[in-house]
């Protein structure tokens, strides 16, 4: 996530709208950095032998890093780094280091929260074109200009 997300004009928002797709690849270097920032020492995120001993092909991308990718998708779309109200996720399959990930979202409904417009979106992170890694939903505040 950028400290200053790209300002994208959301414009009109309607159910069915697709959010601009995000592509991310968490390398082993990424996982090291996230392990420090998030302070996780779980070996399956950096020790390939430990990951394989647990039955995985490689070190696993940290679930909370996938959450950050979802937040990046949403904040780039709205242009507001603080638009997130809720984020609910289910980890479907592991993502491994160096696997290209595609982060997508779609508007489910438009609503209101404390007088502000909101959008509830479905979220899906996939690898290998269409293999689901994570599915979820999020609710975000929409900018005032989106009406």
């Amino acid at each position, binding site marked *: 996530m950028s400290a200053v997300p790209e300002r994208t004009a959301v414009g009109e928002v309607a159910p069915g709208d697709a959010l601009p797709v995000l592509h991310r690849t968490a390398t082993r270097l990424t996982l090291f950095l996230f392990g420090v*920032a998030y302070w996780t020492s779980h070996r*399956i995120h950096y020790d390939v032998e430990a990951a394989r001993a647990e039955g995985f092909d490689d070190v696993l991308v940290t679930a*909370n890093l996938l*959450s950050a990718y979802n937040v990046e998708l949403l904040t780039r779309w709205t242009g507001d780094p603080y638009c*997130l*109200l*809720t*984020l609910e*996720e289910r980890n479907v399959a592991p993502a491994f280091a160096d696997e290209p990930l595609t982060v997508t979202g779609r508007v489910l409904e438009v609503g209101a929260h404390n007088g502000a417009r909101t959008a509830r979106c479905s979220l899906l992170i996939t690898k290998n074109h269409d293999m689901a890694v994570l599915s979820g939903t999020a609710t975000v505040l929409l900018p005032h200009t989106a009406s």
Partner: protein
Amino acid sequence: MGANSSTGPAVTDEARALIGSVTATYRSDPVSMRQIREYLAATGGRPELVGVDTPPGEPICAPPLFFHAACRPVVAQDELLSDGQYSFLGVPGVSGRTMAGGSKYEVFGRVRVGDVLTVTERLQRITEKQGTKGPLVFVTTESSYHNQAGELVARYEQTVIFR
């Protein structure tokens, strides 16, 4: 998570008795610019841009999910299990190898540089299932995060799968 993390999952009656109760509390150190820069660098952002859009005199805010990273306890190496996990992940009395099952974040307010967060974790439920590769135990906890003013800034529900 119990000390024996190399065998299959196990749940004790003691663990089941904790459902609905507070199982952990933690008070963070003051949130620093350094922590926020590290989080941004790790998530693909630009650490050098932290605070550049913040007007003088205004507090510098962290990304929405940073609250969770800020409240990860720092423990000594000899307190970690052989798989690197915290010995206190999940709930006492549930053991096994772990992986993430799902999560729910609710964001109510911003976390600012200098904030001290207090997290209170409650055990919501323990669910035992038979997976395709063996038994699984799903432990779900809900954590509330308050800042030093007592304001609820976030809630986080996490399900950890013990294998």
